[in-house]
């Protein structure tokens, strides 16, 4: 992508994000989000987070023939267990990375 186009994409994403954040703060809460929209917004975060995570535990590219990368899968499961139990992102990173390094060194 040309450098000027990259700048355009970053600025457009920044402005769209700012407008989303400002929306109700600028309107001072005039009106509420409709229920259908709240429902969609409620379920987008787990879906998109899982969609970003999943390809990173694969051994190759996504697709019907996708296979798991052993050490990364185990490290991800360990990180998940820690995060589920402690609700600490930092603990999840620390344990997950320790497991990944341990398994790759073996």
């Amino acid at each position, binding site marked *: 992508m040309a450098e000027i186009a990259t700048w355009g994409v970053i600025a457009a994403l920044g402005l769209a994000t700012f407008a989303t954040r400002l929306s109700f703060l600028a309107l001072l*809460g005039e009106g*509420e989000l409709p229920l259908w929209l709240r429902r969609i917004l409620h379920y987008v975060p787990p879906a998109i987070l899982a969609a970003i995570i999943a390809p990173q535990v694969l051994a190759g590219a996504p697709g019907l023939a996708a296979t798991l990368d052993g050490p990364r899968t185990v490290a991800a499961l360990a990180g998940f267990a820690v995060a589920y139990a402690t609700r600490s992102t930092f603990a999840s990173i620390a344990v997950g990375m320790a497991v990944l390094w341990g398994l790759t060194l073996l």
Partner: protein
Amino acid sequence: MSSLDRRQAFLAGVRACIPLAPGVLLFGMVCGAAAAGVGLTPGQSFALSWMVFAGSSQIVATQLFASGAPGWVIVLTGWIVNLRFMMYSASLAQHFRGESRGARWLAGYLLTDQAFAVTLARALDGRKGVAGFFLGIAFTLWLLWQVASLAGIFLGALVPASWSMDFVVALTFIGVLAPLLRDRAMAGAAVAGGLTSVFLVLPLKLNLMAAALIGAAVGIALEKLWPKSRPGA
């Protein structure tokens, strides 16, 4: 509220960042290093950090830049990741009635998951000075994020690839995702989103957008099957 109370609320917000700082600094560095690592200039990488200022969206944009996705797909996918801020904005607005326009616009610019979550917990406790507290925590998190981004942009290349620091991104998202999975509908949305991104290969790198929409649809469908898992119920 007196200016002294406001100042105390702001400082309480600053202090509330202390337990969050290690995770924010680490994730910020990884986001900065990732952007610089896929060939964005230092200026562009830092612009992601202060213009977009949302880690998951920055990572999504970075990955899409690297894969050569069209500009409109990058903007749209990154924006979908950030749509949740509208919910936070609606919830926070009631605490900013009577605040100046400048304070409200600043709060909008600084709004993040963590600043919102901690502030909401405090507001639910019935504590006063919610607006000042929010600005304190949100501004401090912003500052930490920018410093961490710059460190990642300029020092990231020094970290050997064999350390697999890219996996910190996955673990950060796992750390955010796991506590969200409180009911079957949320878990179903996550499973559907994950499976979509692994098995559905779409042109123009539309996979992530499809995963968000399919995951949300599955979550809503499961919520109808088990109504007690409705948000807020």
